């Protein structure tokens, strides 16, 4: 069984103030990228979770998100599991 790599994307919840996203959007506009809108800035967490069955790994990474990696008051998260590259 190949090991798994978990990719966790933590992003500001919709409707919650995201001053970083706003500032980046304004800067992009100033640089001439006027087509850009709804910029949000989040976090990317990557980790090896070893040779765990996919379902178990998924459940455990979600627990990690709920307990530590994301704050449900202000953030959403998304988990991807991909085979670890040799």
């Amino acid at each position, binding site marked *: 069984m190949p090991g798994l790599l978990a990719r966790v994307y933590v992003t500001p919840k919709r*409707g*919650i*103030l995201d*001053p970083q996203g706003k500032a980046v959007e304004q800067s992009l506009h100033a640089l001439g990228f006027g087509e850009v809108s709804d910029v949000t800035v989040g976090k990317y967490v990557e980790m090896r979770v070893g040779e765990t069955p996919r379902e178990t790994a998924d459940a455990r990474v979600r627990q990690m998100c709920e307990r*530590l*990696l994301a*704050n449900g*008051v*202000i953030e959403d998260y998304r988990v991807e599991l991909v085979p670890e590259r040799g």
Partner: protein
Amino acid sequence: MRWGVVTFPGSNDDRDALRVVARVLGDDGVALWHKDRDLGGVECVILPGGFSYGDYLRCGAMAKFSPIMAAVVEHARAGGLVLGICNGFQILCEAGLLPGALVRNRSLSFVCDVVTIRVETTATPFTHGCRPGDLLSMPIKHGEGCYVADEATLAELEARDQVVFRYVDQAGRVVPEANPNGSLGNVAGVCNAGRNVLGLMPHPEHAAERLVGGEDGLKLFHSARAWLRREPQGDRTEAPVPEP
């Protein structure tokens, strides 16, 4: 009275808080360590300002799992007094002892200033010695002090009188120009539903001696002490305050 101040790795206002309770108030100040598992019989726990665990991941996110936090939660659940200042406020929100969260200042800049805050409710152990509408002057110094919560939570906070302090101008008006960080509703401090846990971004412990510019912050400490001793306060309102 017996106060405890928790030092987390990265706390930097812990000594200042201890100085206020021990030297200014003349009370017992107990230095608590993040690895301690009990609170040493203190009556009020202060979570001080600073940058616990380097503010990694989110401010307060790591500190909430410190061994001492289990004891702090237990103390709070039992009705004990907890005061979170700045990073301490962030930790209390992360730990779920207070609603909402503190995010990056709307300006994206660290802000270091003296602000005026208005006492919105005197029905807490920390403010019952104030009058409603009292204006207090205190320093702030933070990069992540923008208070946010979803609309339902905010409405509930307002309805239950849990907004304890708001940023105002010197005339006491809630205006955007007086808001240093973009906090929703100019909120500077909130309490829990039980009213025994207070968190605020301004620093009462840095406004406790005339030498450093003012002593409005002392009102919070005096209030808590009088409340624990059940001393009547001159202008106390009739609003209910939890019993010790």
